[in-house]
């Protein structure tokens, strides 16, 4: 079984999911479940910290796509942070930087939720 873990915490009304290990076809359902739980409990401000994410495949990326519209329709967002160059390269190849806000640090992403709308 591939090693993949999600640590979830809440900070200033923003839910942070810290991913660890391999996010692939095998482990994607775990992330799906985590998003489902957040959405079911009306949490739509989500930051995904990828600091310890060592690999992501397109099935993993698909989970982000599956929920992004729901989340944005509810005035929320999924923002991504702390990606290793290897992980960022996959996001970049598949054109995700156009679709998602990606930050170097988790705090920047959290603060972004409290920016005044332009």
């Amino acid at each position: 079984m591939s090693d993949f873990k999600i640590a979830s915490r809440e900070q200033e009304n923003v839910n942070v999911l810290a991913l660890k290990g391999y996010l692939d076809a095998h482990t994607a359902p775990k992330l799906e479940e985590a998003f489902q739980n957040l959405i079911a409990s009306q949490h739509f401000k989500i930051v995904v910290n990828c600091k310890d994410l060592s690999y992501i495949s397109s099935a993993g990326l698909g989970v982000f796509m599956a929920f992004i519209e729901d989340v944005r329709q509810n005035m929320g967002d999924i923002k991504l942070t702390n990606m290793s160059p290897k992980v960022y390269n996959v996001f970049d190849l598949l054109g995700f930087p156009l679709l998602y806000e990606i930050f170097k640090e988790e705090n920047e992403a959290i603060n972004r939720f409290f920016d005044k709308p332009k």
Partner: protein
Amino acid sequence: MPRQQRRHTGPAAQGDDAESSHFDHAALFEFSKVINSSLELDFILSHILLTIMGKILSTRGLVALRRDGNSYGVETVKGFPSALRGTQWTIRSLPAGSFAVSSLDGKKHPWVRSLQDEGVTIVLPLVIAERTIGFLGFGERLARKKLHAREITYLRSLANISATAIEKSQMIGELQRVNRNLDRRVQELGTLSELGREFSALLDPEKLVRLLVFSLLGQIGVRRYVICVKNGPDMNVVASKIDGPPPQGELLSLLARIKGPTFTKDLVVRGPVDPRPVLDSLTLSVLVPIELKGEARGLLLLGDKLSREQFSEGDLEFVASLGNLAIISLENARLFKEAIEKQKLEDELLIAREIQKGLLPSVIPEIPGFQISATNVSSKQVGGDYYDVLRTSDGRHIIAIGDVSGKGSPAALLMANLQATIRALVPLGLSLGELTGRVNDLMCENTGGDKFVTFFWGAINHRDMTLTYVNAGHNYPYVIHDDGTSGRLEKGGMILGVMKTPVAYEEGVISLRGGDMLVLFTDGVSEAMNAQQQEYGEERLERVLHRVHGEDAPSVVRAIHDDVALHTSGAPQSDDITMMVVKIR
């Protein structure tokens, strides 16, 4: 040598020459350093324009680069209207060196005219080893002065350095593009191989479809999709995310017959149904049919991408591969499930057969003056046939035959139940009619009324040579007398297990003489089918019985068996064949 030439050319102050030339060289060196320090084409072009515009004191400059053939397109502009970007000219041959646009004939060359119209007065071709890769164009100089020869030389040096830097940057850019495409293909292959692995390990069709959806979302970034899988004759939607009800039935079957991935807009409508309005209303712009062994097995309909980008050929290829992989895996999962179920069924039948074998008496008790022979040939499905021979405490013998409705282990279990009931009740010493009523009541409680048993039993009293019997809805056994006359054992009541005994079962009594023969059988004998679906039939059975009634019990059993086999002649046996022959010596 240039210095020599310059001496003769202009009225420029001779004393500045050395210094100015030194300045020119230093500036060239600096220019070369700056534009070669970057691989960004925009930066390089911008720096070239600004440098030259500063040098010749012009407020407007543009760079046009050769695209393919003789086509040149404007890449960057400074001072000219930005709408000029992207403008293309066809130029068969650009004059060498720098030149004034006004010196060319605008009537002969449309591009010259166009440049003149835009206000381009000076053109500097960008040439590397006699290949023209583009040109620089500049507007009127502020001072409206003509360029000195020395300035022209200097500009040509700048142009040469620029051309090399531009080409290097273009090549790197091209390499990066190729590299990125390659990266993307590698990534796609990685995805396919990962999914191939994962799919083949998944036997749950729902999970499989979920994974397919994630991969489509992640790899292609689609927002809307419909995934259909063929199940029997119909295309069924197994997953979808669209704004409205998914297309159904006939329309899907029609779409699935399309060969290869297609854009909705390119669909060729042949029949009376035009699927395009439905697909357009759901913004489903791409169709990917999936075939397996030349037969349409699935269909993916894809909508817009979240990025609003168009689908590329590569995207379609990827989706087709992914879809094939998923359909094969779904097919495997289905076959696996079928195999498991078949195995389960066979295991169950094996159990049923074991139960049945265990219930039939292994040794038939001896009755003085009687010879008993019985056989049970169970069918593949295992019917619920049963026979038994018991000795009672008062010295009589019970012969019994029964047929439980249904097949497989439920029938076998009910049969076991019947046997246990009989064996428990017989020692009570009640009359056969009363016992049958009790057996029926107990069977009713156990079956809940949805199963039944046809049953015949009789008590042989070898002392007074009588048979007392009850027939509960079973095929009437034969009694064949020594003289060739015959009768049937019909008395009794209704079949067992349907409802509690309303009227007592009637007992029949016959007397037995030497040479008489009793033949008990189940419908597996009389209804044995041949390949033409014709039943063996009781008439044919009777003919055999009359032919062999003088023989001993085992011979009669064998004769019936062989005649039935002759009738079916290899057609699969559909039901258990069970019979018991009792011969009185």
